[in-house]
């Protein structure tokens, strides 16, 4: 079983590395977005009640979430491609266990997500990001980033397996992006003036995922923010992976 998982993870990593279009955008695009936001919204850090000294410290949490959204698309597209191409039937003909396929595949996606998170962190440190959480905060923020990536990748895998269509997975991407924009991505929730926007951001789980990552950078160890972020990420991850496992059972029919 472990060997099957490792082989499937290796395949997943190779699939990603051999498609530059799946490697470069998840790394570059979030950093470019962050640079643009930091340049345009830097004055926001002067607002009374703004929690950080620089907008960069506030904004650098966002690439972690955006990278997770790309992990979602990668996971879903690859599995949908396996359904479309019949590769899933090839796998079904082997003694491979279903769990090995899903765990291996998601494991490979996690590895790529981890590499992206490390890059965001390195870039952050390089441009002078504060990090009051200290040395222990580094593995902790990476763990949270991985959990968030797993949560979205699980949802992507579910859509890919259920629909068997790469286009359907791509179609979900904008939906997830809307969730990101309607969160506390650009401003702290208390400083959002529009009531409807603040209302949505308050009930949008993505806000709490961002705020959990942000807490390592701005406040250090914030128990409430971390409990909410880890809790929500775990719930989405468990739900997403369970849904994906159920969809896989349907796809990988064999007697």
């Amino acid at each position, binding site marked *: 079983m472990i*060997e*099957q998982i490792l*082989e*499937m993870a290796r*395949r997943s990593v*190779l*699939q990603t590395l*051999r*498609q530059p279009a799946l490697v470069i955008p998840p790394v570059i695009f979030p950093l470019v977005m962050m640079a643009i936001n930091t340049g345009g919204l830097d004055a926001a850090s002067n607002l009374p009640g703004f929690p950080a000294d620089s907008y960069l410290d506030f904004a650098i949490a966002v690439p972690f979430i955006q990278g997770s959204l790309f992990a979602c698309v990668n996971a879903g597209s690859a599995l949908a491609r*396996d359904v479309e*191409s*019949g*590769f*899933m*039937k*090839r*796998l*079904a*003909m*082997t*003694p*491979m266990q279903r769990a090995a396929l899903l765990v291996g595949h998601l494991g490979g996606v996690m590895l790529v997500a981890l590499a992206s998170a490390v890059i965001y962190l390195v870039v952050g440190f390089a441009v002078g990001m504060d990090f009051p959480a200290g040395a222990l905060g580094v593995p902790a923020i990476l763990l949270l980033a991985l959990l968030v990536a797993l949560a979205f990748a699980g949802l992507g895998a579910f859509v890919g397996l259920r629909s068997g269509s790469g286009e359907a997975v791509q179609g979900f991407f904008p939906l997830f992006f809307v969730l990101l924009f309607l969160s506390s991505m650009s401003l702290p929730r208390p400083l959002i003036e529009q009531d409807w926007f603040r209302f949505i951001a308050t009930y949008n789980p993505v806000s709490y995922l961002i705020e959990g990552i942000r807490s390592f950078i701005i406040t250090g160890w914030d128990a409430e923010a971390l409990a909410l972020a880890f809790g929500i990420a775990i719930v989405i991850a468990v739900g997403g992976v369970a849904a994906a496992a159920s969809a896989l059972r349907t796809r990988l*029919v*064999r*007697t």
Partner: protein
Amino acid sequence: MTQLPNGIEVEGLVREFKGGIRAVDGIDLRVEPGEIYGFLGPNGAGKSTTVLMLTTLLPPTAGSARVAGHDIVKEGPAVRQAIGAALQEAALDGLLTGRDHMRLQTALQGVPKAERRARGDALLERVGLADAADRKVAGYSGGMKRRLDLALALVHHPRILFLDEPTTGLDPQSRSDMWQEVARLAHEDGVTVFLTTQYLEEADVLADRIAIIDQGRIVARGTPDELKAEIGRPSLEVEPAEAGSLDEVAGVLARFGLPVTARPGAVAVRLRGSVDQLPEIVRAIDAEDIVLADFRLHAPTLDDVFLAKTGRKLEGGEPAAEPEVVPA
């Protein structure tokens, strides 16, 4: 039902889909160990559905089947361990190389770690892909993909091999290479091969025995020679040099057989006897002073068999424009 350790036995197998459509409608089969069994039929006849059931990827609605002595419903894992399959459309990952595929397949099939590399290399060599082993599969030709698909089906030394239309879309050279490899597997390695095809020539050249399936039912079975002998006699098509002689030619030929459909400007009959009649026919035409433009003898083909059994041509799958035998 007896238990053939390397064979296939099927009784009353049915697969019904939504809306009550019966893709496979109560078929019986018996494939002997070591033979190449051709499963011939047009698109949509039920060939691939049958293969999916026999390879345990689709549960049957009714009936039973044993593959390599194991029940396809109750003993799925044992069936899968005994078989290899190259299903319709080579299911490969374009981003992986041939060698990557081999590595993955040998690992998932449980080939001992120490043997995997050698087994993969040997199979790549066998199907002529050693030089392309480290290239991404997306750059392979259709023939190369089919050969890799075949090699992947063989990594765990299966006793029974299912090949679902293995040469569809291939050029003649690639098709011929595939035929040679399949024949070698059966005749040298003793692998039982269940081969579906819509190509008559493929079934004729490769298969020891054939079943013809149409609209989910088996309409004929036997060796290619037996099937041809069933509809038996050759036909003769004669084209006079002058169109005005057509009736005269028809009159002469009617003495030797029943009229059948012919090309425009020609007359054809299914001979009552064997080709031994030919000298007599030539003399009879000569006696009428008829000058001929063309004179063709058609031996019975599997296409004739299919036409006789279903009233349709196999290749193209369209209903025949006219019945084979027309009233004299």
